[in-house]
């Protein structure tokens, strides 16, 4: 019994809050359904694009390189955050931290070198075509050309 | 050390035979027979050189023990007494016979075939000599694997299904044996502080009634499945029927005996009280198996399945005799096992010979063969008479000894098997009649048996007569072992004096 009350008491406000949220949202939807006016004209259905009439398909394909760039940015940006934290406390952390940071940056460099060698940084189509591995690259290339829309 | 050689020679011989098959298929067969022959000589020499030991009750003929997994109290403990010796000799004898006669139907991979036959023989010998329960279980399981290959690779049409059924049935039951062994091990270890799988140590474990009954049932299940006792015999006709000749001989002649041996050596002595309270049920099962097997044999048209069901019937006698647990009945069980091994082996050889000649195992398509193959017919008649237990043949002595002791225990229990033997007369004589008498279907010329076939069948016929006329050497060999076993577990002997009390006690 003790356990149950101990458990319920902190959760009770949360539950009440959730119920209130659900009630209000439902209320808003139901009220607008009954109180709001409805129009069914042609211009109300298409998506709004700054006054322009939309063209082309809504399913836009982006080049794979786009995701690569995004991922590399995320990875290397995160490393920068670590280095920043170390940099502001350089003196307190001392030499051992310096060595550790060297190791860290070394690992990062190795990774960068590897990516470079793999051709992950060659974003232009021409640079990739000159790479050696024929089978993999050609099929990747074909897929890349396929999906590029612009 | 002799005992290790007894197991090791077939193992080595198997490898040699496998290698020799690359040179010439015949060489592999000759090598196998040689290895088994040497082994047989070794076993007989053990018998001869230890006559002294046999006369002193309870003395083992030979014994070896090395530690194996000391932490769990497991050791390699092999020992041999008269009972083991007789069964080992039977195994080797039937092994030689099965290798000798099965050359013609093993054209495919003869080396691998002989490897499997010899290894399964080696494992069966180990089963008969292991006195450490863990070692016993290992050997018990290992004898299945080569036999599985023998059935599945060289059997007849439905071989794979039969082999899998055989393996799954026996392995499932033996897992319960393993659990029961472990249960006994821990009960004994917890009580005494001596954790050991050794037979001698476990022999007088004090068990509560409930624990005893459960553990005993674990043992009984595994042994009963191997023996082909009536409700657990589902795999048996398929396996016996589909196996190649050597497989059938070893299955019926030896492997079924491992179940009986397990009951005699382990199940009753280890759990005397529990066995006592179970014995009535077991004896009824045995008596039922005698009648059931005989009736089923009457309805078979496949010759090999017919022989398989007669095995069920004969193993019913064995089960009955074991649970009567008297000096006479156990001696009878030993004789029954040996003579059944020889009879069943010979009948399977005859069945294989007929199948080769006529091209079918369907008994309804035989008929009128006596004119063409009189020698084969004569020998078949001898074994058919052995099957029904004619005086002067081995099975008669075994059955009479079992029934005598049963009679002293309870008259109704002895009457049912006698009714079963009446059916035995019918199926065995009818079998001969359907094969050799009557109208002869038009068929091309058939050769009578001669050469190797005649020699091996003749030896077996001579043996079965010897067993029937002068069984004393066999009985003398097993007597000390049987006495010792009975003395170690006198409580296992059931006491049923009259039918009235039988009814009053009710079924356990």
């Amino acid at each position, binding site marked *: 019994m003790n356990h149950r009350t*101990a458990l319920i008491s902190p959760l009770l406000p949360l539950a009440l809050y959730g119920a209130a949220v659900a009630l209000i949202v439902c209320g808003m939807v139901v009220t607008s359904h009954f109180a709001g006016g409805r129009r069914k004209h042609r211009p109300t259905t298409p998506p709004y694009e700054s006054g322009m009439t939309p063209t082309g398909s809504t399913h836009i394909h982006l080049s794979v390189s786009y995701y690569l760039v995004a991922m590399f940015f995320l990875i290397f940006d995160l490393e920068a955050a670590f280095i920043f934290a170390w940099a502001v406390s350089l003196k307190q952390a001392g030499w051992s931290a310096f060595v550790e940071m060297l190791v860290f940056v070394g690992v990062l460099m190795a990774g960068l070198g590897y990516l*470079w060698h793999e051709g992950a940084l060659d974003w232009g189509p021409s640079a990739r075509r000159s790479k050696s591995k024929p089978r993999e690259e050609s099929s990747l290339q074909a897929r890349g050309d396929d999906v590029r829309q612009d | 050390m002799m005992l290790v050689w007894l197991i090791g020679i077939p193992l080595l011989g198997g490898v040699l035979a496998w290698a020799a098959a690359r040179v010439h298929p015949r060489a592999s067969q000759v090598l196998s027979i040689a290895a088994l022959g040497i082994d047989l000589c070794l076993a007989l020499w053990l018998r001869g050189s230890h006559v002294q030991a046999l006369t002193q009750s309870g003395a083992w003929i030979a014994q070896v023990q090395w530690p194996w997994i000391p*932490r769990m109290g497991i050791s390699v403990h092999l020992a041999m007494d008269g009972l083991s010796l007789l069964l080992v000799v039977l195994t080797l004898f039937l092994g030689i016979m099965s290798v000798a006669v099965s050359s013609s139907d093993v054209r495919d991979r003869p080396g691998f075939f002989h490897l499997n036959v010899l290894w399964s023989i080696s494992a069966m010998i180990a089963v008969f000599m292991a006195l450490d329960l863990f070692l016993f279980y*290992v050997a018990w399981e*290992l004898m*299945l694997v080569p036999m599985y290959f023998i059935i599945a690779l060289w059997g007849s049409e439905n071989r794979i299904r039969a082999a*899998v059924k055989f393996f*799954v049935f026996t392995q*499932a039951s033996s897992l319960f044996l393993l659990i029961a062994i472990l249960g006994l091990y821990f009960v004994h270890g917890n009580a005494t502080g001596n954790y050991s799988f050794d037979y001698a140590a476990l022999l007088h474990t004090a068990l509560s009634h409930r624990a005893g009954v459960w553990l005993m049932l674990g043992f009984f299940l595994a042994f009963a499945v191997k023996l082909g006792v009536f409700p657990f015999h589902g795999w048996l006709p398929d396996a016996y029927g589909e196996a190649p000749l050597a497989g059938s001989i070893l299955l019926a002649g030896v492997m079924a005996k491992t179940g009986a041996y397990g009951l005699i050596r382990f199940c009753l002595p280890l759990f005397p009280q529990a066995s006592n309270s179970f014995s009535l049920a077991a004896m009824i099962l045995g008596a039922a198996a005698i009648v059931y097997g005989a009736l089923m044999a009457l309805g078979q048209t496949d010759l090999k399945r017919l022989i398989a069901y007669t095995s069920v019937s004969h193993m019913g006698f064995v089960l009955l005799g074991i649970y009567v647990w008297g000096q006479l009945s156990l001696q009878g069980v030993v004789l029954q096992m040996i003579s059944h091994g020889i009879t069943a082996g010979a009948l399977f050889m005859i069945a294989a010979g007929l199948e080769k000649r006529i091209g079918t195992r369907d008994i309804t398509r035989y008929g009128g063969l006596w004119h063409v193959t009189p020698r084969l017919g004569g020998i078949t008649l001898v074994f058919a008479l052995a099957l029904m237990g004619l005086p002067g043949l081995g099975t008669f002595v075994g059955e009479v000894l079992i029934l005598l002791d049963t009679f002293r225990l309870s008259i109704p229990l002895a009457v049912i098997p006698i009714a079963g033997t009446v059916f035995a007369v019918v199926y065995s004589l009818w079998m001969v009649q359907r094969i050799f008498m009557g109208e002869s279907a038009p068929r091309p010329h058939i050769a009578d048996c001669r050469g190797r076939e005649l020699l091996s069948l003749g030896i077996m016929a001579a043996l079965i007569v010897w067993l029937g006329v002068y069984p004393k050497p066999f009985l003398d060999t097993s007597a000390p072992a049987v006495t010792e076993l009975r003395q170690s577990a006198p409580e296992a002997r059931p006491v049923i004096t009259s039918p009235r009390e039988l009814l009053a006690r009710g079924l356990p």
Partner: protein
Amino acid sequence: MNLENLMLLSPFIAVALASIAVMLAATLWKTRFPALLITVVGLGAGLASTGALVGRAPAAVTPLLLINGYSLYFSGLVLACSLGVALLSMGYFARREQGPVQFCLFLLLSTLGAMVIASSSHFASLLLGLELQGAGLYPLAAYARFTPASIEAGIKYLVPSTVASAFLVFGMALVYADSGVMDFGSIAAIGRAPAMSLLMTVGLLMILSGAAFKLALVPFHLWTPDVYQGAPAPATAFVATVSKAAVVGLLMRFFAPFTDHGSNAVAASLWALAIASMFAGNLLALRQENIKRIIAYSSIAHMGYVLVAFLCGTALGIVSATYYVTAYAITALCALAVVSLLSHAKETESLADIRGLALRRPLVAFLFAVAMMSLAGIPFTVGFIGKFYVLSAGVQSRVWPLTFSLAVSSAIGLYYYLRVVIVMYRHPAPASEKDAGPSAMAGMSRPLSAAGMIALGTAGVLLVCFGVYPGPLFDFIAWMVGS
């Protein structure tokens, strides 16, 4: 971070350094061989340094990792299995256009993650290890990315695995919310207390479901057959050995305090998982025609057997479970090594592909048959000894429902192991049916890779050695794990 700690971390450092070296080697040399060599050397060095640490007093390296006999044993097991997989991949990729560099990289990272899991003593390190191991595994499963099956395997592993991780993290959060601790020692103390709060129970169950997913216990097993089938054979071997061993190590270390008294919800769930896995795994394997799928379902059942020993809650139970995992890892490695060795352009994986194998390659067929016998628990194989120890733990603790479930389900399992064995020893299908698979037949006459044969041979020898004379290994495990 003093020298002592660096010493204790040396196995981790060796593997981490190897992964960096693989990247550098890939930029410096064009050939594929250095990457494989570095991987093998790195894993070997990790194994050697693990061996050098044996016998030291247990020590906590930061609050995150606890290096003791137990963690060292499982790290060593993980490293040894990983070494086997690396050797297999040498032969496997020699026959393919696709390079092995990234495979080695992911293999090393995933191994590192598995080692962290086995040594973790804190939620943070556990999560780190699990994610590192998982992140390496997804691309390993999808490595043959020009075959749809492999891509499917990768996705099928990735998506549920992420969900499982979410459950795990949520469970950790609930446990932390209730107790305010995240290290295993304090949680174990809560586990030994007589009663547990509801929040704690829910949290622990969520953690359990995450672990159960990684072990593919029923009902968290749905990904298993497709991943095993689609992944390249060495990757399958990795999933079957390394990832299982590490998670079993974690499971036993983390949940052991909760199995002492079987009345709580965690122990009851573990019982249910064990029984369901044993039966479902064996029953579902019955109708399979694909060797990798058979091994997948059998792995489900085998993890159920491990749980049986673990649930005994005794010292013998833990040692038996560890022995069983070791036995299973050796056996699975042996079996999948055969699949990997026989595979060429197309994976050799259906039962029809190996029909008549014993006539063409007697040694390989024999080893595969022995591996199947070991999975089935036939004497003189390590699998039998493992099952014997598991059963003895079960009988000793009198957990009869689990013990009998094990006996019955493993008898069911015999059926499909025997099928695989007998197919190899039959004659090849007659020529009229053979026209579908000329490539399969052609692959049978190729020479096999030496490195792969070394891995297979070692696994096979260990399988028989520990099956015939298991005493020393059992004593070693008892000494390592018992501490």
